């Protein structure tokens, strides 16, 4: 079980969190004309990197904040965690 440092609450066990996917994906702005492929990239296409990955987690059984976690997908090492706006 991972040990994740919530930037708001401190070190907490993984079972308090929910995984939220790739944190580098940016939602296209509202009302913006974009191509089908751009939209498809946003909705469906995700990289599955081996190694460092910036991902979202939500501290659902804690402060309910979405946070960003820089984690190694191979070793599970967590390098750094950030608040949503960081």
């Amino acid at each position, binding site marked *: 079980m*991972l040990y994740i440092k919530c930037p708001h609450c401190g070190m907490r066990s993984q079972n308090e969190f*929910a995984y939220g996917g790739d944190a580098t994906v940016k939602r296209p702005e509202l009302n913006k004309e974009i191509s089908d492929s751009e939209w498809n990239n946003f909705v469906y296409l995700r990289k599955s990197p081996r190694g460092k990955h910036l991902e979202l987690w939500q501290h659902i059984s804690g402060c309910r*904040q979405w946070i960003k976690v820089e984690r190694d997908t191979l*070793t*599970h090492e967590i390098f750094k965690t950030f608040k949503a706006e960081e």
Partner: protein
Amino acid sequence: MSQEFRLDKGGFINRDKKISFKFNGKQYFGYEGDTLASALIANGVHLVGRSFKYHRPRGFFGAGVDEPYAIVQLFRNNETDPNIKATEQELFEGLRAESVNCWPNVNFDIGAINNFFRMFIPAGFYYKTFMWPKSFWYKLYEPIIRKAAGFGKASIKHDQERYEHKYEYCDLLITGSGPSGLASAYAAAKNGAKVILAEDKPRFGGSLLTTDVNIGNQTGVEWTKKIISELKSMSNVIVKNRSQVFGYYDHNMLVMNERLSDHLPKTEKYTPKQRLWYIRAKEVIISSGSIERPLVFGNNDTPGVMLSSAAKEYIKVYGVIVGKKPLIFTNNDSGYETAIEFKKNGIDPLVLDTRNDPKSDIINEAKSLNIKIKISHVVVTAKGYKKVKSADIAKISDDKKHLSEIENVACDCICVSGFWTPSIHLASQSGNKSTFSEEIDAFIPDKSKQRETTVGSAKGIFTLEETLENAFESGFNLSKKITNNDNKISVPSVVEKKFTNHDKFWCVPLPKGKNYKRFLDFQNDVAVSDIELALREGYRSIEHVKRYTTLGMATDQGKTSNLNGLQLVSDVENKVVPQVGHTTFRPPYTPISIGAIVGREVGKHSKPTRKSPMHEWHKKNNAVFVDAGIWLRPRYYKKGNENLFEASKREAKNVRQNVGVCDVTTLGKIDIKGPDAAEFLNRVYTNAWLKLPIGKARYGVMLREDGIVMDDGTTTRISENHYHMTTTTAQAANVLSHLEYYLQLVWPELNVNVVSTTEQWAGAAIAGPNSRKLLQKLFTNKDVSNESLPFMGYTEGDFFGINAKIYRISFSGELAYEVNVESDYGNFMWEKIMEVGKEFNIQPYGTEALSTLRIEMGHVAGSELDGRTIPYDNSLEGLVSKKKDFIGKRSLDKAAFIRPDREKIVGVVPLDKKTSIPEGSYLVKDPKAKLPNPKLGHVSASCWSVEYDNPFSLAIIKDGKNMIGKKLYALSPLKNKSIHVEIVSSHYVDPEGKRVRS
């Protein structure tokens, strides 16, 4: 019965306390402090089971966790446990155990015929033989194999025992209380660290219990006692015996199973049977010791062949001798320790040493005791079927390839020592890659991956002096890092016997013309010939060889077999062991009961049960409950002998004719506040929200970004910047997370806050033509006319002294209101509604009637919003704004979504107006068409229409609108039904929606 193999004195057992027990129906006795194994051996019982594949007789091989054979079915306090190692099971009064893997009994086992046919059961036998014909697998092969295989039977009763989970944090977790564990725990504890010391056996001390050493002028046993009692007295130390750390997981979390009650006849009150500890440790010291390695020779699985260290442990700990004519077969000095123990107890052993000129203190000691030693000698094969009777021995050439003349010597046990294998399981599980040590012919931990340090013989250090020095140092250094203290304990002086080098020899060659089975893996019946065959057949990777032959698999995890298997592969492949590598060690290190893993999460404890404040009222009024997510909801209220169908029909009918009341507390509720709340809702929902007036509710649908409907519900504008959102019961948590995601990450500029208020409000839906009349009587001071409180209106009112919120919304399609009061007043509200409603013939209705009402109205719910449909599919296009953008809008343009024959919701009525259509039925044109019959759609929800008194269903069907009026067939292969149906509009009752507005 006398205990023929029990010594008159010695051991740590309590000879004043006799304990009687039964094995295979026969009564025996042992002493307090015995294991089942030691008590059986004391009674001369050596045949305890049959092997896995060939059903060969099985005795004891080890004395603890390393035991591959002696697995029994245990009966305790009217429960039964399979997979219990007799070497670990402590004796208690009334213990009952039986052999496994034998039928009809262990002495005469029909499966043993496999042994004579073994040339037909080579490696990969199952893969090769039972492949054809395919249809035989389920009916014939599998049941037979299942019956013949496996160790014991799981109980089919509900386990009444209590298992607990516990979370713990510490500075240092130390796994194993041998000399290295004790030393590092003591050094760290004295330096102020919070320490947990875990020992899997009942007794602390590890190898100190069985070796003659001196630490600081005390015996090993005395020193252990002193250290343990001091550690136990320290507030910063937790000392646990009978506790196995079996798994090393991510971020230094380890799991330990504490067996609190398995050694007692029954679990004491207020004590669990077992407790699983999740331990997050800042540092871990692995002091798990080492396991003696077998030597490989002919029929080396015969009962009576066992590890020499185990034989020594039986003498030293239990006062039991494993035989009266022992043969010690060794490639190192350890075997001599066992020989000396036998000799000291008046028994003459014969030592066969594979080395040609070994010289050391201990060999000199053995010689001075007149122990017979044959150097350069090996056991060629054990003789005897159910117990060793003799051994063929021979001199072996210096190159270890040639045997001289074979000589038969009588013996009743063969104690083998092939040197020591460090237990690197935990280190390996932590991600430590391990490295091969040429010096000890075994893998030892390499560079740490997580925060773990291995000490003592688990690291390949086999002298006590070096072990203590290293362990004291590690304990001090690691604790200093954490506590910043500098309180260093000096290492005590050590007196121990000096050992000389071991012989790298491990496998005795076959004599000419003999084809003895030489076993590597005793638990899984893997012999030398199996590995050779696998390699001949082209298996190269050690992981593949493992799976093909089952070497090192199952509960044993290769504790005794692993290295010899690797030796063999490297010999045949002409590689060195490190190139071959070892297979992955996986948790658990030793079998853990399912009960311990599950803990308290059983039955109703497996998830929380949520009940509405009106739950007790429902119960009193014969409600039959149904699980709705984690909530319990009344499904129907039983009257007399009514069944579900009759009751729900009555309840639904009463809503259509009079008035009914339904507990809607379980609906998800989210409070949305802030100046940008309207803008936020406008982005979340598909329809327009900017112009919703205060005091009005609106129905809304929200999508995922891929265009699929996520949830629906009504949201009400309570005041300028305050909205009250409702979600479906099932999606409440997901919707909240969804909203938080967009507010925190995507549009942080929006000034909006969301919070769940599901538990704050108790809700009652009052529905039916009489509902306004009833409402008026409930809120006497309030104008609830259609003009002041129109459809989708909202107001607050005084409900007999308490504040209530009234929403004029309807799921049933009737004139209806939802009244919310604070949860604590829920029951009061409900009882008042029932009391006042009496004159209007009010009846409560459950979820089944609720479904009926919504289905015949064509209102969608979870069975239509099933994660596959978009708003158009559910005829919700009126709710999809063309003007504004919202979550998921861009996806609605997808070609698949705008296809003209896209699935649409319709109604389905059986032509006979009698046959109910099973939910999940397929709609097809021709019921007899060749399979696969082209599917046009599926039935999503079915009910008995109370309006028309005939069955009615909703379906999602291709090109739905154009199918209306067509006749199709609903097929349910599961229920073996084919029903001729007509497709109609999904709005079966009141299609104009007059009633809700009346």
